[in-house]
């Protein structure tokens, strides 16, 4: 008992002393840091959603670096797309999606005021179904979706239940493969790849070994510059919202959108400005993405582009 009391007292003293030290000698490091960034307008702290493809990383990283230089505090949060992310924006834990392919999946959240559509980011996205280029040479009519069933046997694997294997994009991406297969009565089994890298693996292997593969892919993506793929054309697109698509027709070519939280739009601080003004081309994104893919740290790759494109960056922060 006596021992316990002694222990309690000791802890109390220590806590008190610790409390005093913390309050008395407040952050010397902070003083130095705040004079550092104190030049411009005050900027808040925000979270950017990080989605899982390298192009997105490129855009988000450039915005992050520009914002940090403007004195903003940025946290990057890795999250699945769409529903999950919009929920996070509603909860206040995410402030920005720099590139959304959703074709209006966010409408329900926008109606509630949880998500604000900021406009397009200059990139134009095009999703499609692809085969390695050697297949288009060997079977020229394979690029017409009407002939897919004719070649289904080529694509059979142990995973595809006797039908052709259709490598679908990750669950979070804008995907309508299941609808395409059933609406067009295609003799294919959907196999979800789960990640951009897995798709790249599939096509890399198919191109190198000259094995057949049919899979989901998209531009802007730097990989298309490295390995030649041929697009399988479905009937001309007639939808924008993937949730409403019939599956009979192809993916649309669509401007990629910036989405922000209400908090960010209301703040009207330097970061709001950067987000509103940020705009670049597919080639810009591919340049940064290529550096990231070849092993450069994303922050360094972004900084390299920023240094080489000072005018563009200046126009965002104005």
């Amino acid at each position: 008992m006596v021992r316990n009391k002694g222990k309690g007292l000791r802890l109390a003293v220590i806590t008190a002393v610790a409390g005093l030290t913390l309050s008395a000698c407040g952050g010397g490091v902070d003083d130095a840091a705040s004079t550092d960034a104190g030049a411009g307008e005050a900027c808040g702290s925000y979270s950017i959603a990080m989605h899982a493809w390298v192009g997105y990383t490129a855009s988000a990283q450039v915005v992050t670096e520009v914002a940090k230089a403007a004195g903003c505090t940025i946290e990057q949060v890795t999250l699945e797309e769409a529903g999950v992310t919009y929920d996070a924006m509603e909860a206040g834990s995410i402030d920005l999606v720099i590139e959304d392919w959703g074709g209006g999946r966010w409408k329900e959240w926008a109606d509630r005021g949880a998500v604000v559509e900021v406009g397009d980011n200059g990139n134009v996205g095009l999703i499609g179904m692809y085969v390695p280029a050697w297949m288009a040479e060997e079977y020229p009519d394979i690029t017409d979706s009407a002939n897919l069933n004719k070649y289904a046997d080529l694509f059979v694997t142990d995973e595809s239940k006797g039908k052709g294997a259709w490598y679908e994009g990750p669950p979070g991406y804008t995907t309508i493969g299941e609808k395409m297969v059933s609406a067009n009565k295609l003799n294919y089994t959907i196999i979800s790849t789960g990640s951009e890298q897995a798709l790249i693996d599939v096509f890399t292997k198919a191109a190198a070994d000259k094995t057949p593969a049919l899979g989901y892919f998209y531009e802007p993506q730097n990989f298309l510059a490295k390995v030649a793929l041929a697009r399988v054309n479905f009937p001309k697109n007639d939808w924008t919202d993937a949730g409403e698509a019939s599956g009979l027709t192809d993916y649309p070519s669509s401007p990629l959108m910036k989405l922000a939280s209400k908090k960010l739009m209301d703040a009207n601080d330097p970061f709001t400005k950067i987000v509103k003004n940020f705009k670049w081309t597919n080639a810009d994104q591919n340049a940064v993405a290529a550096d990231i893919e070849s092993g450069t740290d994303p922050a360094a790759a972004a900084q390299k582009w920023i240094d080489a494109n000072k005018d563009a960056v200046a126009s965002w922060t104005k």
Partner: protein
Amino acid sequence: MSNLALGTSRKREIKRSWLLGGVFVIWIGLAKLFNGKFTLEIAVPQNTPFTSFVGEVAKSIRGNRTDGAAFKYFFNPIRQIIDGFVTFIREIISIPTQGATIPLIGWLGVLALIGFTVFAVSKLKTAIMAMALTFACGALGLWKDSMDTLAMTIAAVLLSLAIGIPVGIWAGRSDFALKLVTPILDLAQILPTLVYLAPLALFFLIGPASATIATMVYSIPIAIRLTAFGIRGVAKSPVEASVSMGSTGAQTLTKVQLPMAKKTIVLGINQTVMAALSFVVIAALIGAPGLGKPVIEALIIRDVGEGFVAGFAVVFLAIMLDRSTTAAVVKQNTFVPPSPAELKRRKIGLIIAGISTIASIILSRQFAWAAYFPKNINFAEQIGHGADTTVVWITETFSFFTDGLIKFVTVGILNPLESVLSGAPWFLTILAISAISAIIGGFRSALITVFLLGAIVASGLWFDTMITFAQTIVATLLTMLVGVALGIWVGRSAKADRVLRPILDAGQVLPAFVYLIPMLGFFGPARFTAIATGIVYSIPVVVKIVGQGIRDVPVTMIEAATSAGSTTRQLITKVQLPAAKNSLLLATNQGLIFVLAVVVIGGFVGAGGLGYLVILGSSKPELQGKGLVAGFSILLLGVMIDRIAQYAVRRNSAPRQ
């Protein structure tokens, strides 16, 4: 046990295996005959009336989140309180406080504080080890993420204990309370983690609060169970003595029961901490900050090195927290009172440690070198590269073996099993599974099986459930094959136990996502990737249970068999394995539950089935209802597997006349 009884039980067993064989033959035959009919298969984007209904409900819940009364007065306040609590702890060690650029305490201060705390509750050696492991997390270039994880774990553990210990005390003192909480605890223990993320996110949105609550769902049952166990384990006589001396209930509790149960309760804290930490990675899926982020990122870009580096940091933190809390348990256990000299030395030690801790905290707030973890101490690249090279080497060296193995498992076992389970008419499958359940678990087991399978049919996701079930069975079979062999080895040889135990311990704390990454590289987007991950995840628990079972076989039985001239092989197959049958059943049960929890995560990498639907539902609003129902179906499947195994264990341990 007389010879006669042994004879009849043996006969019954033989009869049972014939029956089982018969069911299998008829089942497979009929399944072949009616293949592809009444499979209840529905296309992935298609909703059933039920899943549409659930989707509508989910949508209206989403719409109500700002103004609905339930949210305004219940869910949102809870979220805000937990969010505030988590932020408070994070601001101390991991994120900048309001208007500052560093957390309240920089890395040097945190390190000192950890050392001091561990020293205060255990001994110097453990404290130094704890500091070294924490420092190692920083040297992996993951200081901030590690601190976030530590903060999240501390927050979740404190909240779990705040709820778990009182409820555990209640359940320890009242039989009624125990009856009330036991089924809930049982359910929580078999609930695959992926299942309740989406419903939680629906009510508490994405972010640290949801992640903390999800972690608590996982760790509270453990705190309750061990606390109740500890209170109940206190010998009757001191309690009776206390009551007879006129103590009130509260006095008996605080003066007798709690102090005497202290050791078990501290063990409960240890287990709660480990449970919370094991949730780190999966919680990142609903916005938890910390080490889960780099692991998920690495999975997405299939960066084996990055995944392992983050995985190692998780393991370091796990060892640090495990050893520190275990050392505290050991200290509760020492009955030899320290000598005055020792006490004095310890006192001086604590004072010195305390002063240096305060000094470190002050330094870490004044100077950048003590505030930010030094950038030049970073071995992430070397370790990541090492992991990468090792994995590549394993892939290339064993590809002749792995290629054949995948082919054999996929074409030889998985595809046929899948076509029997999911390709046959649903009622035939239900009939067959129920018959098997009846043979191994008895009538009540069959009844529950029919009920649960019926519920799965009603959910509309029968076909996908059977796909997941087939993968679970195959992975469990392979797990048992390897796990039982290793378990026998560990059980028979103390040396084997010494060699394998650290590997098994590490395997149990290394997040499954970490080795999912190289598996994806090895096997590509395929069901085998999910199966292989499930096997790696569940082998440690199977080996441990089987090893314990073999070790618990009475020495007299083994001596008798040896003196009768049994060979080692006979000894294992005729004596040790049959005597450890209950452990084998228990291991199978745990294996199945562990495998199921991970196989559904395989939905991320092309394994399809229910896991894929859960993941799809979380990002495609039009399929949210289907995703929620899929989560529920996983739960039904888990309960069914668990019930059958439990009934089988019970039947085996209490043989009737």
